[in-house]
């Protein structure tokens, strides 16, 4: 085999040194009847053959280029060529976790840069060296908030419009911790069970934590709207509440002014957790400026490929006050024996390899290489570039919404402000429209019926800097052509 480098002569010399006659003898501790099983796998393939086979698989995926308007937590953003070129350098890609700092300054310094830039972006004091993705970040943020109360506060309030997959991950993560998850909107449990588009739907899963719906004096609105909902969340938070979780922009692209929310919550000892989109932060006020205690986010837009859902990047930030409760690795600055600046992993006593069962989380391997991509991306974009990307998303999505709004049969609910993604009411089931446009190579957005029973006639449309005006116009006329 190509990746085993010992020759027969090597092998003989090695066996002699060990003092055995054959390699098979080295496996004597394995129960004999189970040793060396026959594995039913196809014969080995050469690199030529394997490439041919996998290229054929990749080509079986439909190619949708500028005419994709799918977002919903993973977006088609511009990735400067320098990002993959630098991040795929073997010195970064084939290094391990930087446990020997003197041999890992490249990784450590890059992570320090990532932490520094994401602190500026989110307006927070501390950022860790990455989590798995936006969904696990928000689940661990809830755990962190509960643990911060030393388990005294076991209630977590979720705002409407939290991504259904984030909700599902929270339900999995929190089920054993006896945490009470509560949401304001009636669609709380109407979401998916696991995979969007999965055949099994939302049934089953008895073990998962359920999400209770709570009511305030005014009753729960059908669709929680903007700042009014924030007031209801603040009112509902009590001495048993560990945190309130708000996604902004939310799953539907809606944006809200969070000013004042943190103060109301802090007065009750409740933490504010905000999940955000890092591109949004290129133009709009960061959660840190509004007093958030923990900020999490999906870092995929920062130079990371769509790649059918992963690997992505979990952004995880908090205040200095909470740093010892934070999960995951942190890189800190120090000096070497000669006084030169250098970087090391620090505050390890929070982590599993030191603290074991008392650790803040079990996380070990993270998404380091994706954090590196984000650092390179932010360095290339700079303040002007990032603002431009955010502006392009904002204006193009608003142009698209205005044009679609003009179509007979289609409408855009005007109950809220949005960033790069918006809901469209469709005259036919959204799934029919998607099917009708697929042969033309157009992906008009997400069928919201996949997650919400009551939203079968709604599309979630995302527009980024990658969609030109021509693309948008093509989408608009295509929608018009399949209106009935």
């Amino acid at each position: 085999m190509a990746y085993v480098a010992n020759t027969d002569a090597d092998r003989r010399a090695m066996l002699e040194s060990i003092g055995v006659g054959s390699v098979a003898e080295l496996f004597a501790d394995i129960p004999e009847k189970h040793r060396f099983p026959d594995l039913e796998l196809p014969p080995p393939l050469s690199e030529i053959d394997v490439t041919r086979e996998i290229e054929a698989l990749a080509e079986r995926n439909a190619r949708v280029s500028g005419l994709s308007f799918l977002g919903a937590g993973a977006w088609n953003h511009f990735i400067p060529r320098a990002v993959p070129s630098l991040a795929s350098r073997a010195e970064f890609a084939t290094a391990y976790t930087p446990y020997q700092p003197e041999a890992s300054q490249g990784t450590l310094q890059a992570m320090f840069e990532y932490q520094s830039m994401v602190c500026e972006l989110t307006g927070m004091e501390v950022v860790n060296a990455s989590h798995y993705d936006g969904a696990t970040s928000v689940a661990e943020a809830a755990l962190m908030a509960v643990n911060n109360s030393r388990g005294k506060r076991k209630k977590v309030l979720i705002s409407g419009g939290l991504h259904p997959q984030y909700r599902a991950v929270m339900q999995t993560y929190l089920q054993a911790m006896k945490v009470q998850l509560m949401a304001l909107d009636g669609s709380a449990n109407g979401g998916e069970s696991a995979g969007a588009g999965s055949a099994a739907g939302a049934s089953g899963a008895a073990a998962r934590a359920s999400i209770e719906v709570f009511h305030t004096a005014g009753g729960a609105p059908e669709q929680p709207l903007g700042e009014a909902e924030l007031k209801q969340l603040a009112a509902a938070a009590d001495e048993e509440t560990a945190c309130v979780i708000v996604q902004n922009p939310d799953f539907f692209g809606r944006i809200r002014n969070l000013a004042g929310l943190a103060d109301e919550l802090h007065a009750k000892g409740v933490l504010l957790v905000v999940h955000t989109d890092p591109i949004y932060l290129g133009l709009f006020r960061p959660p840190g400026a509004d007093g958030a205690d923990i900020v999490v986010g999906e870092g995929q837009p920062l130079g990371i490929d769509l790649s059918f859902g992963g690997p992505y990047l979990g952004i995880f930030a908090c205040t200095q006050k909470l740093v010892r409760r934070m999960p995951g690795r942190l890189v800190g600055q120090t000096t070497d024996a000669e006084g030169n600046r250098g970087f090391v992993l620090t505050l390890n006593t929070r982590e599993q390899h030191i603290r074991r069962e008392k650790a803040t989380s079990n996380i070990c391997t993270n998404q380091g290489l994706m954090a590196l991509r984000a650092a390179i991306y932010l360095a290339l974009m700079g303040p002007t570039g990032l603002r431009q990307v955010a502006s392009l998303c904002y204006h193009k999505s608003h142009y698209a919404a205005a044009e679609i709004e003009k179509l007979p049969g289609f409408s855009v609910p005007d109950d809220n402000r949005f960033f790069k993604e918006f809901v469209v009411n469709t005259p036919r089931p959204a799934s029919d429209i998607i099917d009708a446009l697929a042969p033309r190579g157009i992906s008009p957005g997400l069928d919201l019926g996949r997650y919400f029973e009551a939203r079968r006639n709604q599309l979630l449309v995302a527009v980024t800097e990658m969609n030109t005006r021509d693309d948008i116009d093509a989408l608009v006329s295509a929608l018009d052509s399949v209106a009935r």
Partner: protein
Amino acid sequence: MNKLIPPLLYEQSEPGRRAAILPECDVPASAVPEDLVREEVNLPELSEPDVVRYFTQISQLNFSIDTNFYPLGSCTMKYNPKVNDAMASLPGFVGHHPLQQEALSQGSLELMYRLQEQLATVSGFHSVSLQPAAGAQGEFTGIMMIRAYHEARGDTDRRKVLIPDSAHGTNPATVTMAGYEPVEVPSDANGNIDLKAFKEGCDDTVAALMITNPNTLGLFEERIEEVTSALHECGALVYGDGANMNALLGTLRPADVGIDVMHFNLHKTFSTPHGGGGPGAGPVATTEQLAPFLPGPIVACDQEGGPYYFSDPRQSIGRLKLHHGNFGMLVRAFTYILMHGASGLRELGENAVLNANYLKSRIEKLLPLKYKRRCMHEFVAGGRIEGADEIRTMDIAKRLLDYGMHAPTVYFPLIVKEALMIEPTESENKRTLDAFVEVLETIIKEARENPELLHEAPYAMPLRRLDEVKAVKELILRAET
């Protein structure tokens, strides 16, 4: 060596410098909400050549598999084939949106389906979920499945999970997250589970045992079937930590010795790059009995060749992360398994064990070994040198760096004093292993003649020994901006 360490990005920043150029806005502008707008983000301002040179320069401060021997125990730092990366970077994969319809995603789905089948074949299990993002998440998945299994049977009084004292720290941390209580099981003089103590703790309050086999001492649990039977007799299940699965490729299917559920570390066993800390992937495999509890979505098909579709197991514990797992890592592992086939995988397993035993046969003449048994893919030596009492494991580790060799895992497992955990991996050849032994011999000589030299190592790295205590005390976690 003393490579150039460039100043931080913020220190290089000059107002007005730019890298990325974006297109002009080609649509009419809309009103931007004034109450939400911020000033420009305070990011560094650099040109593309600045950024490229910076990251290239700092990359060169790293040791990596492609540049150095990296015998980091339990981490399986073996060669990561380039073709894996090329396959994961195919435009049909990297540009594909995770919520694209199934009918338009058949290539990705088929790949996932076939990888599920491959992993089931290699491990002897019935079903596989590719969801978990890393080993620790795989562990959490497995223990939550065990929990759901007991609860589904109304068996709700089990609260303990047994964990051998040689286990990785992720095991007890996982158990806490799953709402159980970890109970440590001692090891015996041969590095196996102490069967007497184990059996005494084995009762109907036990939900599971988490076992790493081969364990972190690199030793195969000799009475594994006795251990798994004892658990099953008291109604408990066995979780297999697959961190050391490379030793078992083609040599043992964990399901055959009574493991009920396990995770794979694709970034160890199946050669996906470690990325300086991640991303990894931690698929979970299990028996028919536990399959209904696996996290979804899982790829299914009703007939050979598809169509393939996503499906959620009936009593699923739920979703672990966004979408379908770390897909890019799945492509790499699939490529690796396809290239090796059954014979190639066995060759990997055999060579992992051959390399480790050979290196052990050479090193046991130099350093003390607590366990004299034959090892599997790794072994643990003590970093104590006769005639150089004041030398510690850390001194040896740091001095190795000067000779261009990455240090083994140090001070772990906790049950060996001054541990040096050495895993040469299957992709190294005898020549490299011999060079490592020669370096160790030199270091031992240095330790006896000039111990100060070791205390102050390294010398040839970009920086001298770093002050970790100061880092905690000062806690500088971001640059001055």
